[in-house]
């Protein structure tokens, strides 16, 4: 075998689970001496995938334990091998895999925790944004304020779940001290993934705040965002919320749409 494409296709096949063909057709040596050598490559490919998945999903690994996570990584890799030379892109569909994987059905919160962790992972690599200068806001004429459209920091993500994701994240932080209990209930939980400086944070949002930021994310003007918040929470305090989000670099920019 002398064609480069054919040799690489054969090498790829030999890195698969149950290679059927004799590696000695391509590589020097015999099948017996080549087996442990190809096993090194198979092991490296698998270990690199597992390492990348664990880097994106540290809470899942803590929840299921390292040994079970090994098995999850192997099963996931069979269905979803890496497609990118940058391994930080690997694992995007792990939540869907967990939803359909019968052996974790007794941990029904895993898929939502995975959704949260992927949002945190992406937030880590998202573009930077400066804090919004309040002077710019003061220059918006009163009659134009309703047409103002906010822009969220590129790291921001909104999630809702039947599980208390912000609390689950909090008790798994390396520097968390004290009570590690997570209380489950039947209500819907909303949270915000954001990056005020370099560390990614997860905050609980009440219904009004979530409705407002979801409207912002859809590109709705301020007037419409306020309506959406007040529809679910009559006590939504716009002034306080905006000030806190500007301070925490959740809201980082705005523009005013035409009348």
């Amino acid at each position: 075998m002398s064609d480069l494409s054919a040799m690489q296709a054969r090498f790829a096949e030999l890195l698969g689970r149950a290679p059927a063909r004799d590696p000695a057709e391509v590589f020097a040596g015999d099948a017996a001496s080549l087996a442990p050598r190809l096993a090194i490559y198979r092991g490296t490919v698998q270990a690199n995938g597992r390492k990348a998945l664990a880097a994106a999903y540290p809470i899942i690994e803590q929840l299921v334990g390292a040994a079970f996570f090994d098995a999850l990584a192997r099963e996931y890799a069979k269905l979803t091998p890496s497609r990118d030379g940058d391994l930080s892109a690997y694992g995007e569909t792990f939540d869907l895999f967990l939803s359909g994987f019968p052996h974790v059905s007794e941990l029904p919160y895993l898929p939502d925790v995975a959704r949260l962790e992927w949002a945190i992972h992406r937030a880590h690599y998202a573009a930077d944004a400066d804090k919004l200068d309040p002077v710019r806001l003061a220059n918006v004429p009163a009659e134009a304020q309703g047409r103002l459209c906010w822009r969220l920091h590129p790291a921001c993500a909104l999630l809702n779940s039947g599980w208390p994701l912000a609390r689950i994240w909090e008790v798994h932080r390396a520097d968390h001290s004290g009570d590690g209990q997570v209380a489950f209930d039947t209500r819907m939980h909303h949270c915000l993934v954001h990056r005020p400086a370099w560390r990614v944070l997860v905050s609980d949002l009440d219904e009004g705040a979530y409705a407002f930021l979801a409207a912002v994310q859809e590109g709705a003007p301020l007037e419409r965002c306020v309506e959406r918040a007040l529809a679910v929470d009559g006590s939504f305090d716009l002034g306080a919320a905006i000030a806190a989000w500007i301070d925490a670099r959740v809201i980082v920019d705005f523009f005013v749409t035409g009348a």
Partner: protein
Amino acid sequence: MQRAPFVLPSPSLSGIGLRAAHYRDFLDGRPPVDWVEVHSENYFGDGGYDLHVLEHVRANYPVSLHGVGLSLGSADGLRERHLAKLVRLVDRFEPMLVSEHLCWGALGERHFNDLLPMPFTEQALAVMVRHVTQVQEALRREILVENVSSYVTYRESAMGEMAFLVELARRSGCGLLLDVNNLHVNAVNHGADARAEIACVPAGVVGEIHLAGYAEVDELLVDDHGSRVSPPVWDLYAAACRQLGPVPTLIEWDTNVPALAVLLTEAAAASAVRDAAHV
């Protein structure tokens, strides 16, 4: 196509691979090392902490960008999106050196994220020349291409790895990154002659040398970058210094990363070996 010859940076430099475990050391102080190298792909994000740290480090040290995922040797072409991210990173940091490997890792949709060896054939050489040229044109500068450690060799290979790389350099205008540890690992794994490999490399073509540790697994050497540089690799390094003249040298350590002081000791040892070779 005419190319300007590869220009060597200041040769009397010892550096270390910068890993996240040592970010704090480089943010809080100025560790005594001449330069640092990072894996390009770890800085492919749009923003965030890693790039923030690299900006800080770049203000204090020359930085080299070492790629592990471009898959220069893929028979089915370069991944343009990956190359575009590398271009963005090189434009932003203006590194001292940019390097990649003599290997492939991607086929079709699949990426193995490993440095898989190439056969040393005319056809493979033509593919490498085409892709290295494409990368150099996109970056508007020369790159270094590194020899890899391997656990298999191809029946079709018609020359040694360094002879292949020297010819690649001649045809594409690239420089070489000589990994002395990889030469030793391959010598043990394949019965190759590491000194003969070094002897076929002309002075002036090598822009950087890598040193690292390996592990021994069932009579095979595995290039795990997880320990100190071994005595036979120091001996080979001294031979390389005598043959090639002083070349910027990097200590790589990727698994079981120790305290920074250990890496600095290894970098200082590299300087001592290099100086002794040129008395």
